[in-house]
């Protein structure tokens, strides 16, 4: 019972249609950032325990060489450039102010990139070996969540998923990185998807792509048709261009018609969701044992002189990337890591690129919430916009008068902060932030309750 608009698929309710702003970069190929003179690699750029350095200060490493072990729950780190290891130090971090990081100073003496020859048996590897390769390659979810992929696959297998949904929706305005990845490596993505499906135990792959990327759909469809084996069918599902089409639950519903219960993962309905860029990385890891070294991101927005899709070594400084894109335009006031809807504002440029960062949007002018906000006029727009059917208005007015604990019936705990409500609010109310406050308070209260 997939819900469809015409032949297109979409999620059940809510959502918004912000101006996509993708024109500036959608036509630009992925361009490589010239090797930076230094990279900074925070030891923690995934969900899990931080990586443990396995190189010494002053050691020369080649690009591709492992420099930190992943431990039980994390993933290892690899040198994105060849150079000399600097001491582990606290360095600026995009989200955590400062964090312990490994730095590598670019040094030609260290030698060229390691070679990653093809493993001829890559299609028929045992499960354990495949998972190990994914782990060793340091792959995390590249859609933004940065959860170690090998663990996610393990969980999916344990949860007996039967369906892999590949996320190629890229519904965030401005961003085109996934789009360019899909155009550049359609066959690799399809192959990677099949590999992921095998590891997860899924028997079918659906790749959801928003309909405003017709050439990506064509390319992927061709690649799927050209697959040598048919034991795991791959199907491309065009979806309506509508935010948040790419949110896990929305995408799962759109392409498969399955409804993920509130506060549960898609695996509850037998689905594993992976980003298309992750599929590409998995493909590289299994076929070539090639670790994750670069990140493809969109650098765009009115605040950048030459918007581009950039492939940059992990750890490259954002200032280098911005400079590669022509530098900041006058009047640039805000820098968003990720898309403008769910991304996060960064205070400064001297932070490194990390695995989860799929875009850098530079904006001019004042932010929507900078000029204060008005009272709720109960227009109901947020109710219509919320893809989950929550009541951001009710939550917000209760938080305003300090009754955060009364917000549970209005859905505060279910919110995943897609930002649709804030986007549509004519009174510019920070509804997402009210939701966050309410959620935090409710969780605290629940923790206190269970503790006592």
């Amino acid at each position: 019972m997939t819900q469809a608009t015409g032949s297109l698929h979409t999620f059940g309710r809510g959502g918004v249609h912000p101006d996509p702003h993708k024109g500036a970069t959608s036509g630009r190929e992925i361009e490589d950032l010239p090797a930076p003179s230094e990279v900074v690699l925070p030891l923690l750029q995934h969900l899990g325990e931080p990586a443990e350095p396995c190189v010494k200060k002053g050691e020369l490493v080649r690009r591709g060489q492992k420099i930190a072990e992943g431990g039980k729950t994390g993933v290892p780190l690899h040198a994105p450039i060849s150079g000399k290891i600097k001491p582990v130090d606290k360095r600026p971090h995009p989200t955590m102010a400062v964090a312990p990081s490994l730095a590598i100073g670019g040094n030609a003496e260290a030698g060229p990139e390691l070679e990653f020859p093809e493993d001829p048996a890559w299609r028929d590897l045992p499960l354990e070996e495949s998972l190990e390769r994914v782990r060793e390659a340091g792959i995390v979810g590249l859609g933004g969540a940065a959860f170690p992929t090998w663990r996610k696959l393990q969980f999916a297998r344990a949860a007996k998923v039967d369906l892999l949904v590949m996320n190629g929706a890229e519904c965030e305005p401005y961003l085109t990185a996934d789009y360019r990845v899909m155009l550049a490596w359609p066959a690799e993505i399809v192959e990677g998807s099949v590999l992921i499906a095998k590891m997860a135990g899924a028997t079918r792959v659906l790749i959801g792509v928003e309909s405003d990327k017709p050439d990506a759909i064509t390319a992927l469809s061709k690649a799927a048709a050209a697959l040598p084996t048919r034991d795991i069918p791959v199907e491309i599902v065009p979806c309506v261009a509508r935010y948040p089409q790419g949110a896990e639950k929305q995408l799962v519903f759109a392409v498969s018609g399955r409804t993920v219960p509130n506060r549960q993962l898609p695996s509850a309905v037998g689905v594993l969701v992976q980003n298309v860029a992750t599929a590409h990385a998995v493909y590289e890891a299994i076929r070539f044992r090639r670790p994750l070294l670069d990140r493809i991101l969109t650098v765009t927005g009115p605040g950048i002189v030459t918007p581009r899709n950039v492939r940059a070594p992990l750890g490259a400084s954002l200032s280098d990337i911005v400079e590669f894109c022509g530098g900041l335009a006058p009047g640039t006031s805000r820098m968003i890591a990720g898309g403008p809807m769910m991304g996060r504002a960064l205070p400064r440029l001297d932070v490194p690129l990390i695995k989860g960062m799929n875009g850098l949007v530079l904006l001019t002018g004042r932010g929507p919430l900078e000029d204060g906000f008005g009272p709720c006029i109960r227009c109901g727009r947020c109710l219509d916009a919320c893809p989950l059917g929550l009541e951001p208005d009710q939550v917000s007015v209760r938080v305003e008068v300090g009754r955060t604990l009364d917000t549970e019936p209005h859905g505060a705990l279910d919110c995943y902060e897609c930002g649709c409500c804030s986007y549509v609010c004519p009174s510019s109310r920070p509804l997402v932030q009210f939701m966050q406050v309410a959620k935090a308070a409710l969780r605290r209260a629940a923790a206190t309750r269970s503790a006592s």
Partner: protein
Amino acid sequence: MSDTTQQFVLSPGPHLHTEESTSKIMWWVNGSLAPAALWGVFVFGLGALAVIVAAIAGSVLTEYAAQRVMGRRPTLGDGSAVCTGLLMALTVSPNLIWWQAFLGGVFAIALGKMIFGGLGFNLFNPALLGRAFLMATFPLQMTSGWAAPRPWFGAPLDAVTTATPLAVLKEQGLEAAIRLVQSPVGLWNALALGFRPGSIGEVSLVLIALGAGILLARRIITLAIPLSVIAGLLLSTLHTGLPVLHLMSGGLWLGAFYMATDYVTSPSVTRAQIVFGLMIGVLTGIIRVYGGYPEGICYAILIANSMAPALDLWFKPKRAAIAGSPS
């Protein structure tokens, strides 16, 4: 060369925002009412203009004073006080004296809105409260001696007074109502075009429809409430044999499109809005046919307003994901 120490503004997300804003919405509402208001001035003369201006002045000044007294940032620019004053003026008789309209505006804002803390917190439509207050306070001016509309570019308005079609219908029956609006353009045209006695802004259905169309096109209002109001009215007046006459007369359109759709005082969920609208429509019909007033929409909306919090409780938005079963 970019400066690596540059500090960006750390504004919370989402970092994009719709173009719509409260004040834009309010001013669009005000603007879309302008044709109907101007028509009122055209057919009823400058007295109607004085009523409109005084009502708006009363609302705006009261809002400003109340915000000053309460130590809050004055928000006159958002146009909501103007909207209240204008809407109230459009629902009252052109026969009102300017200071009475002014008082109505004062009441509407002071006791209908500011006493609850201002925009967004009131429970009843302030414009209609203003009208109900005027009905209770100046029943003579509000219910009798209706100014007769002047025909196309005819003689200026003199002291001719008459009764509204609904009042005549209630008192004397259909024939008399038809005789009342006998005009060069005929009954139905009179009802639609606005050559009939009535409240300042309610007479020209064409212009109200135009304004409502603008609001609909801009998605400021939706059809859920207005259509269910109309359905409710037709339902409850069907047995009189005159549902269309009821539909075309009185302040029904102004009420259905502008008053009942007031965000603050109506439910937010579509299903609740339909119940709300039906309630208004049916109550309007009942009050008109069996009640004490020839016109019922004002009180019907106020009564429905009083039910709105309960409707909000009963009708919750449908949660997207309640149970998960693979299809």
